[in-house]
Structures are given as structure tokens and as C-alpha cells.
């Protein structure tokens, strides 16, 4: 009872402390989700697919269909092969470049440490409000840069037209080489965004300009975030994903075998077991890589990585200040978590939806509101919506 009270009090404390950033994040995610879901629901064929899947008789069939769809999606990213491959590793590596940095910022906003390689890149003396402000600025700048680079051709066109016209007016004839223009525009955008983040984010305690300032401490940061953490983490992400894919493919292929429930329990259990194993392996691999790096940094006289600070934060507050460590570990579990979500969704659906799903599905004409209701009832299936 005491434990439960302590748990409920801690829930209240977290809600009291973080209600406003959570409201902002929840609102933004809600808008993004709504803008993604409405066109899908308005599209008759897409809705028909969801409906067909949801009213499919038999939990095992529904479960396998979700898995088969998930496998088709992953094949686009990781390649068709179920063994280890450079393509699969590369896909994991690209993702592994982004999340350590954002986990680091996120953990810092929740009160985690911000120094690395002897550099206080994230100011630990700032208040939680200012830290969240800094995090929002960095995220906004990243989204802005991503959108900018997606449309860099249009920007180059604009500038090219403007420059050509200006030259013409000045009585000169000529044009700028396109690649040089594009490179100049990209460089100006990056410098401008870094300067803005350095200025505005600095209020929030994010010393982003220091990352580009040079020096041995900065080199340590670059090595850690660009080489050691991503390459080590991606190894086990890749192995974990491929083992889950192999198990799930085997499960789908045994569609007509006897003892279905036993086969499903066996595969889910094996997936959970391997996820645990990879978690332990990652808890060995990451410190090993960082400590070997520290050896090398020590030999050449550079600052060392203070990973103990982050480990201690994870011990005290794994889902708060320790998010960098927890997040690095949790990412290895993601394929298994998605698998369990599919299993849970497929098994729980009849209990959640009951007769209402059948009633809605039987309607010959459905309004958008009907479709939203239907989607709300089947909830989890939207993640796996797709082409058969």
C-alpha cells in the first residue's frame, strides 16, 4: 500500500512539474497525428483495408496479417535478406546518429548531466524551464534545416534568378555555377541556424557554437557522438532487428502448422529472450567501447568521457535524468516491443471493440465520424495500416 501511495505521489509530482512541456508536445503530436490520419480515413480503399483487417475472424490470422505487413515495411529499410547485412547495418546507423544527441538533450532537460569530454556543452545550472526552452530551440532548428535541405533546389532557383537578373541590370552577362550557389546557400543556412541556436539556445543553456569552436574537448564530443556511440549501438540494433524479423518470418511461414497457439507462444518467448540477451550485450559493449576510447584519449592527452555521470543519472532516475543511458538500451528492445504491441493489439481487439466494430463495419455508408470511431476502437491497427 505504501509503495502504491509513493508511486501515485511520484505520478502527481511528475505531472505537476512537466504539465506544460507535455501539453505542448501532446498538442503538436496530436495535430501531426490528426493531419496524417484524416486523409487515410477519407480514402475509401484505405478505410476498407482497416475494416477488413479489424473484422477478420480469428486472432491468430489477424496477428499474422499485422506481422506480415510489418515485415514488408521493414524489408524496404533493411533489405529483403534476414541475415546480417551492410544495408541493414547502414539503416540502423543512420537512425543511431540522431537519437544519442536527442536523448542527451532530452535527459538534460529532465535534469541530467550536460558535460562531455570536459566541456559543459549543456549548462547544468539552468532551470528546468530554460532547459526545455533550449531543447525546443534545437528541435525547431533541426526541423527547419531538414525542411530547408528538402527544398534546397527551389531556394537555389530563386537565388539564381535573382542574381542573374541583378547582373543583367548592372549591364553584366553571366551566371553562377549551380553547384557553387547551392553549396553557398547550404553553408549560409547552416551558419545562420547555428548562430541563431547559439544565441537563442544559449539562453536555454545549449552551447551549440562551442561544438564548432575546435579544440581537443570538442574532438572528444565529435568522436563520441559521430563514431563510438552510433557504430556500437547500431551493431546490436541491427542484430536485434534481424533476429526479430527472422522469428516473425518463420512464424508467418508456419501459418498452416498444427498447434498454432504453442508456435505463437514459442516465437514470442524467443523474441523476448533474445531482446533481453541483446540488452545485456549492449550494457557490456557500450562501456567497453567508451573505456577503450578513454584509453586512446588518455594516451594522446585529450579529455576523457565522463560516462560514469550518465550511468549514475540512469541509476537514480532511469526515465528522467538518465534517459541517455536508458534510451540507448531501450532502442535495442524496440523490434520486440513492436512485436508485442502487434500481439497485444490483435488479441485485445475483440475485447476492446465488441459489437460496435461489427455494427460500424456493417454500415454500407460511413461518415468521417463513424470512421474515427472505428479507428478509435481498433486503435493500434493504424500503425500497421498499409498495402496488401
Amino acid at each position: 500500500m505504501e509503495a502504491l501511495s509513493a508511486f501515485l505521489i511520484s505520478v502527481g509530482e511528475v505531472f505537476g512539474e512537466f504539465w506544460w512541456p507535455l501539453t505542448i508536445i501532446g498538442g503538436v503530436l496530436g495535430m501531426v497525428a490528426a493531419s496524417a490520419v484524416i486523409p487515410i480515413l477519407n480514402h475509401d480503399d484505405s478505410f476498407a483495408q482497416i475494416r477488413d483487417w479489424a473484422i477478420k475472424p480469428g486472432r491468430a490470422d489477424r496477428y499474422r496479417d499485422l506481422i506480415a505487413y510489418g515485415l514488408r515495411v521493414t524489408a524496404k529499410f533493411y533489405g529483403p535478406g534476414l541475415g546480417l547485412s551492410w544495408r541493414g547495418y547502414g539503416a540502423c546507423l543512420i537512425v543511431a546518429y540522431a537519437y544519442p544527441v536527442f536523448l542527451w538533450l532530452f535527459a538534460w532537460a529532465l535534469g541530467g548531466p550536460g558535460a562531455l569530454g570536459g566541456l559543459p556543452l549543456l549548462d547544468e545550472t539552468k532551470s528546468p524551464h530554460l532547459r526545455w526552452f533550449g531543447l525546443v530551440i534545437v528541435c525547431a532548428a533541426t526541423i527547419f534545416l531538414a525542411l530547408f535541405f528538402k527544398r534546397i533546389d527551389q531556394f537555389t532557383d530563386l537565388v539564381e534568378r535573382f542574381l542573374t537578373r541583378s547582373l543583367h541590370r548592372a549591364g553584366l552577362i553571366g551566371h553562377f555555377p549551380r553547384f557553387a550557389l547551392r553549396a553557398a546557400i547550404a553553408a549560409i543556412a547552416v551558419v545562420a541556424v547555428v548562430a541563431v541556436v547559439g544565441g537563442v539556445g544559449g539562453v536555454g543553456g545549449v552551447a551549440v557554437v562551442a561544438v564548432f569552436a575546435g579544440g581537443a574537448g570538442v574532438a572528444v564530443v565529435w568522436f563520441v557522438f559521430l563514431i563510438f556511440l552510433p557504430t556500437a549501438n547500431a551493431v546490436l540494433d541491427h542484430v536485434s532487428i534481424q533476429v526479430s524479423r527472422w522469428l516473425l518470418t518463420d512464424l508467418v511461414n508456419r501459418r498452416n502448422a498444427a498447434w498454432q497457439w504453442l508456435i505463437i507462444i514459442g516465437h514470442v518467448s524467443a523474441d523476448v529472450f533474445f531482446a533481453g540477451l541483446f540488452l545485456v550485450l549492449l550494457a557490456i559493449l557500450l562501456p567497453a567501447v567508451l573505456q577503450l576510447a578513454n584509453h586512446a584519449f588518455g594516451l594522446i592527452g585529450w579529455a576523457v568521457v565522463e560516462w560514469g555521470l550518465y550511468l549514475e543519472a540512469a541509476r537514480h532516475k532511469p526515465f528522467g535524468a538518465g534517459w541517455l543511458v536508458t534510451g540507448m538500451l531501450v532502442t535495442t528492445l524496440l523490434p520486440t516491443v513492436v512485436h508485442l504491441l502487434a500481439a497485444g493489439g490483435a488479441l485485445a481487439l475483440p475485447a476492446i471493440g465488441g459489437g460496435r466494430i461489427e455494427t460500424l463495419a456493417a454500415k454500407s455508408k460511413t461518415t468521417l465520424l463513424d470512421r474515427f470511431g472505428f479507428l478509435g476502437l481498433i486503435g493500434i491497427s493504424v500503425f500497421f495500416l498499409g498495402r496488401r
Partner: protein
Amino acid sequence: MMVIAIVFWQGAEHFTGPLVNKLADLAVSTGRAIGGPGMPGT
């Protein structure tokens, strides 16, 4: 939704705490086995 998320979040922290501690112990042991500068607690 947010209340559910926070309850899950806190629940996860409560129940995974011992596991994270075990993994942290394992990480420290690994680091000590390799040795060198920057080890936690040195």
C-alpha cells in the same frame, strides 16, 4: 492520454529501476575490467 502516458512512464521507472541498476553494475564491471582513465568512481 497524457495522464496514461505519465502513469506508464512512472510505472516503468518503478519496475525497471532494479533492472537498470543491474545493467549499470554490469557496465561498471566491464569498464573496470578494461581499466584506464575516466572510470566511474575514480
